[in-house]
C-alpha cells in the first residue's frame, strides 16, 4: 500500500535538502546549533519509527496475504484463540522500553536548547510581532529595524550566539526560521526567549507560523548572517540618524504633514510613531511589506499609494496622495539609507 511512500520519499527529501537544492527552508538542512540538535534527535526518532513501521507493516501485510480465505475447506471456522498473557506482555513491555529511550533523548535535547545560558558577549535582540511585520530591536546597540535581522556568524572557536526575546504587540505570532531553530511563539503578555548561532554566512528565510490574521501568509522574515566585520559596519550605519538632504525637502514635507509620522519613526524628525516599521534606514533593507516585495522605487511608490495592492488587509492605510506627492515622498524615502 502507498503508506510505504511516506518512508520512501523521506530519504529523497533528506538527500535533496542536504544539497540545498530542494528548498531554502528545509528543517533537514540546519546551520545553527538548536536546529542541528533537533535534526540529530529527528534522525533517531525517524530511525526508530522506521524500524517499527517496517516490522508492523510487514506483519500486517503478511497476515493479509497469508490468512486470506481460500476456496478450499470453506466450511470450517479457524481455531479460536482468546488471548495470550505472554504475547500481551511482550507487546506492552517492548514499546515501553522504546518510549523510554525516545523520551530520554528528547529530554536531553530540550534541556540543551532551553537551558542554554547566554555568554557575556552574546548579542541580544528583541523581536516584536505586529500584524503583519516584525519589529527588531538591538537594545544594547541603539539599532531599530524591521523584518530583516542581521546577526554575526558564530564560529566554533569563538561562538557568538544571538539571544532573542520575543514579544507581541497584538495577536499571537510564531518565529520560525527552519534552518536556524524550531518555532517559538510571540504571545502578548508572555515574553519568550530563544537563541541561534548560525555557522554559515548567508540569508535564511522564515515566516510567521502562528495564524495571526488576514495577512498571516505575508509575514515573511529574513535573517542575514554576516561576518563579524560586516555586522559591526552594519550596526554602525544603523545607529546613525537619518540622512537630511534639502534636495528632497518637498517629499519630507509630505511625509511630515500627512499621517506618516503617526505610525513611523525617522530618527532626526520629530515624532515617534510605533505602529509601523522604523524608516530611518529604510533603503538599507532589501524588501518592503515584510518580505513580500523587493525594495525598488517602483514597488515603494506602489506600496505608499495603496498598500492593499500588494498586501490586501495590511494595516497601513492608503493616504490618497496625489501623483506629485507620491513622487516626492518616494524620492524622500529613497534618501533614507
Amino acid at each position, binding site marked *: 500500500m502507498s503508506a510505504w511512500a511516506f518512508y520512501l520519499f523521506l530519504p529523497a527529501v533528506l538527500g535533496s535538502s542536504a544539497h540545498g537544492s530542494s528548498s531554502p527552508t528545509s528543517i533537514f538542512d540546519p546551520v545553527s546549533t538548536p536546529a542541528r540538535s533537533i535534526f540529530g534527535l529527528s534522525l533517531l526518532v525517524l530511525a526508530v519509527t522506521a524500524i517499527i513501521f517496517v516490522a508492523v507493516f510487514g506483519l500486517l501485510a503478511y497476515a493479509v496475504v497469508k490468512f486470506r480465505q481460500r476456496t478450499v475447506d470453506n466450511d470450517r471456522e479457524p481455531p479460536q*484463540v482468546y488471548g495470550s498473557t505472554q504475547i500481551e506482555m511482550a507487546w506492552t513491555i517492548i514499546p515501553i522500553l522504546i518510549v523510554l529511550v525516545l523520551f530520554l533523548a528528547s529530554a536531553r535535547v530540550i534541556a540543551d536548547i532551553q537551558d542554554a545560558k547566554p555568554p557575556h558577549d552574546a548579542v541580544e535582540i528583541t523581536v516584536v510581532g505586529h500584524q503583519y511585520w516584525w519589529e527588531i530591536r538591538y537594545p544594547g546597540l541603539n539599532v531599530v529595524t524591521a523584518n530583516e535581522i542581521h546577526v554575526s556568524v558564530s564560529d566554533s572557536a569563538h561562538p557568538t550566539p544571538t539571544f532573542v526575546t520575543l514579544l507581541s504587540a497584538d495577536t499571537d505570532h510564531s518565529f520560525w526560521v527552519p534552518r536556524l531553530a524550531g518555532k517559538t511563539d510571540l504571545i502578548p503578555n508572555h515574553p519568550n526567549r530563544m537563541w541561534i548561532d548560525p555557522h554559515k554566512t548567508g540569508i535564511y528565510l522564515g515566516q510567521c*507560523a502562528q495564524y495571526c490574521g488576514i495577512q498571516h501568509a505575508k509575514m515573511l522574515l529574513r535573517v542575514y548572517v554576516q561576518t563579524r566585520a560586516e555586522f559591526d559596519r552594519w550596526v554602525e550605519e544603523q545607529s546613525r540618524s537619518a540622512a537630511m538632504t534639502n534636495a528632497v525637502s518637498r517629499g519630507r514635507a509630505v511625509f511630515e504633514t500627512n499621517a506618516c509620522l503617526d505610525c513611523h519613526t525617522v530618527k532626526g524628525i520629530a515624532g515617534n510613531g510605533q505602529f509601523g516599521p522604523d524608516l530611518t534606514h529604510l533603503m538599507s533593507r532589501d524588501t518592503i511589506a515584510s518580505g513580500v516585495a523587493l525594495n525598488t522605487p517602483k514597488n515603494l511608490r506602489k506600496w505608499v499609494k495603496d498598500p492593499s495592492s500588494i498586501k490586501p488587509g495590511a494595516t497601513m492605510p492608503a493616504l490618497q496622495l496625489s501623483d506629485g506627492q507620491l513622487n516626492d515622498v518616494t524620492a524622500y524615502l529613497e534618501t533614507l539609507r
Partner: protein
Amino acid sequence: MASDAMTLPRTASASRLLPEIRTWLTTVDHKRLGLLYILFALVSLIIGGLEASIMRLQLIRPNNDFVSPELFNRMFTMHGTTMIFFVAMPLIFGFANYLTPLMIGARDMAFPRLNTFSLWIMAFGGAILYASLFGGSSLLQAGGAPDVGWFAYAPLTSRLFSPGHSTDFWTLGVLISGFGSVATAINILTTIICSRCPGMTLGRMPLFAWLNLVMAGLVILALGPLTAAQFMLLIDRYLGGHFFDIMAGGSAVLWMHFFWIFGHPEVYVLVLPAFAIASEIIPVFSRKVMFGYPVMVGATVAIGFISMSVWAHHMFAIGMNANANTFFVLTTMTISVPTGIKIFNWLATMWGGKLQFKTPMLFCIGFLFQFLVAGLTGVMLAAAPFNWQLTGSYFVVAHFHYVIVGGILFCIFGGFYYWFPKMSGRMLDERLGKLNFWLFVIGFHLTFDFMHVPGILGMPRRIYTYEAGRGWEGWNLIVAIGVVFQAAAILVFAWNLLRSYFKGKIAGNDPWDAWTLELRFIASLGNGIGRYCR
C-alpha cells in the same frame, strides 16, 4: 427490541408524506435519531469537503488568486469547525445511538427525550454557525463567516481584532452543540451502565459498547473546559471581562490551556468509536473471536485516562519551561503504548484466521495501515524539539488528517457497509463498495502522504498563498490531485447508498454471519426506513 415498537402503516403516498416527516422530526426512537445524526453528518461532510477543496485549489500553485485572503481564512475556520463538531461528532453519535442499545439488549437509550433534544440542539448549533454566511461584510463585518481558525486563539477573537459578529456565530455554534454532546454522553453512559439486558455483564459486553462507554466519559470531562472557555470569551466580548484581554493583563495562554484540555481528549473521543467499529468488523471477517478482549478493555480505559494529561503537546512552541515540556513528552509518548497494544491485538485477531475481503473489512485493513503511520508521525510530534520544527506546519496537518480521515473516517465507512443491511434491510453493492474503497485509498494517499513534505520544507499551515522557489509547488499540486479522487470516492459512496437503498440485495438475518445481538435480526423491508419511500 426497539424495532418491534415501530408499528406505522406500510402504505406511503403523497398524503402520508407530511405526517411521516412530522414523525421523523419528533421521534424519540434511538434508531431514527441515529439515522438523523448520520444524515446530518453526511450533509455537513459534503459542505466541509467543498470548503477543503476551495483551499486546495487556491494552493495549487504559488501566488494564486483564486480566492481572497478573507475567504481562505474563513474556509479553513469553517472546514475545521464543521468537520470536528458537525461531521465527526454526529457520525460517532449516530452509530453509538443506533447500535449501543441493540448490542446490549436495551429497549432504547436511557433517556429517549433527552436524546431527541441532543440531536436537535446539535443541529441548531450547526445552523447558528452557518447563519454567519447570511450577513454582509459591511458594517465592520457584522456578518461573514468566522475567520479565527478552528482553535480560535486569543486575542485574535477579541472585539479589537475581530469586530462584528463572525466570531460570535462560531462561539455560539460550538457552545450550543456542546450541550447536545454532553447530554448524549450522559445518555450513552447511563444506558450502558443501567440498561443492559439480564446476563449482559460488563465483561461480556461487545467491545463496541466498552469503547463508547469510555468515549462518553471523556466527552463529559472534556466538553466542560471548552464550554467554560466559550463563556469566558463571550463575557470578554460583551460584558467587559478580561480573561483573554491582553490590554488589561489577561492571558492568551489561558485560552490555549482551556481549548486543548478539551481538544486533545476530543481526538480520543473521535478515535475510540472508530476503534469500536474496527473491533466489531475485524473479528467477523477474520472468522475469529477478538484476541485479548480484557487487554483491549484495559487499553481503552488507559487511553481514556492518559488522554487527559497530554493536552499541552499542542503548545510545545509557546515557551513553557523545560520541565513542563519534558512532562508532556512523557505523557504523550506513553499514550502510544496502549494504542499500540490495540493495533497488535487486531493483528493477532487476523492472525491464523480466514480473512474475507468484503468492503467493511477492506476499510478496516486500510485503517490499520494508515493508523500505524498516523501513530508513528504522532511519536515524532511528541518529541518536543522535533515538534518545535513540525508544529504549525503542513506536517502536523498531514498527521491529524491521517488520524481523522485515514483512521476514523475509514472505520466509519467500514461501519456503513457493515450495518447498512441492519438499517435498511438491503445490502450495499459490493462492486461499488470496492470502487469506493480503492478510489478513496488512492485519493487519501495522494493528498495526505505528500502533504507531510511541504511541512518538512518549512511551509506553515493557514497561509492563503506562498511565493515560488520554496520547493513547495509540486507537492501542493499532488495534494490537490488527490482531492479529485477523494471526491469521486464520496460520489460513488452516495450513489451506492441511494441505489442500494431501492434496489440492493435483500439482506436477510445476519448477512455477515456475525455473532453480536444487533445483527441477529435484520429489519424487514417493511419495517426499516425503506417503507417510507416505497
